[in-house]
């Protein structure tokens, strides 16, 4: 560095120091800076709390939205979770399963949905019960009994011989009168094995 430059730098530094000395902060200004900075701290805390509350609210909102979108069946009996959505297998009547079994061969199976099986079971049970307990109204009593069945407008005629046989087995309830709703119990072969009042639950056909 040559002499003129050195002199200039010295002057520059001198001027700069002088300028700086004229622009110092007073003690009160420094104190005000500190007070302002310290005073702002709680607002920072409240801001953090606000952000946290907002995040929580968004989380709850997202949960509600996604829960209502994907959880159509509110009480699924069986669910299969995947990364995309929750599958309720009750939405499907048949499930086809394809896999390689432990022996290494390809196998496929069809799994019927449990509720379909349940429904089928309930229907079967109802048919079974209909088959074994037939309801009808006692419309005429002479030697034979005539019962208007609830099943497809069938009139059931019970001959004296069967009535005697059933009464001998105490399979006919006493006090049966014309107009009563009766229950006819059948065995597995469709034979009537007992006659009784249908009970308080069945006052008329279809009830």
């Amino acid at each position, binding site marked *: 560095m040559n002499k003129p430059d050195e002199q*200039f730098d010295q*002057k520059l530094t*001198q*001027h700069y120091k002088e300028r*700086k000395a004229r622009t110092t902060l007073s003690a009160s*200004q420094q104190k005000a800076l*500190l007070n302002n*900075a310290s005073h*702002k701290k709680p607002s920072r805390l409240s801001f953090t709390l606000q952000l946290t509350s907002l995040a929580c609210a968004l989380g709850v909102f997202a949960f509600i939205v996604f829960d209502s979108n994907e959880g159509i069946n509110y009480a699924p009996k069986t669910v299969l979770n995947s990364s995309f959505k929750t599958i309720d297998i009750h939405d499907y009547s048949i499930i086809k399963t394809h896999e390689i079994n432990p022996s290494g061969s390809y196998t496929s199976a069809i799994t019927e949905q449990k509720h379909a099986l349940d429904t089928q079971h309930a229907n079967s049970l109802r048919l079974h019960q209909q088959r074994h307990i037939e309801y009808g109204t006692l419309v005429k009593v002479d030697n034979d009994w005539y019962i208007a069945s609830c099943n497809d407008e069938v009139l059931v005629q019970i001959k004296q011989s069967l009535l005697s046989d059933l009464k001998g087995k105490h399979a006919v309830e006493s006090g049966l009168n014309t107009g009563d709703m009766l229950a006819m119990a059948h065995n597995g072969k469709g034979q009537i094995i007992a006659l009784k009042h249908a009970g308080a639950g069945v006052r008329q056909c279809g009830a």
Partner: protein
Amino acid sequence: MLLSIKSWLFETPSKDCMASYAKSGDNRYLEQLIALYSNDLHHYLVTQSNTHLAYDVSQQTWLKVIEKRHLYQAQTTPKAWLFKLARNTLIDEYRKQQRFVELDENTHLAAQNDKNESGLTIGSSNISYGAFDAALKQLSFVQREAITLQQEGFSLADIELITQSSLETIKTRLRYAKQNLKRLLGANNEQA
């Protein structure tokens, strides 16, 4: 044991108050920082803007120190880190006021003159304080900044960190700043 009791009783202040403050958040360190650096920071801001804005940005900067203390890394100079915060705050403020276009060499952001006390002589120099102040404020933002930071005692690497400019750019700015100052002060002297 005795040594630890002694150190607890006569705790020597850490050399890097900023690191201590970043670690603990203790207001005592903030006080030390303000005592140590607030004047330097304020002068830099006054040079780059005006008294009113400088004080406002100064306050904002100290708030940022509180908010961003966790971002401070002990390997950087605390003063350089504070100046960087102050500079960014000032630029943000200018942009808010739509007074700042670009930080290139040609951007000539004339610092607003406070009430100049012209006619005062500085030391044995025949250049008045007013003339020097006026000449400094005629420099472009980045040239004035380069010369101010150098006079603050920052190394070129520190200035590089504060201004986020390359070393060569900073050297160029310093060279042009001095040339322009010489020219401006020479012209003032001739006028006088």
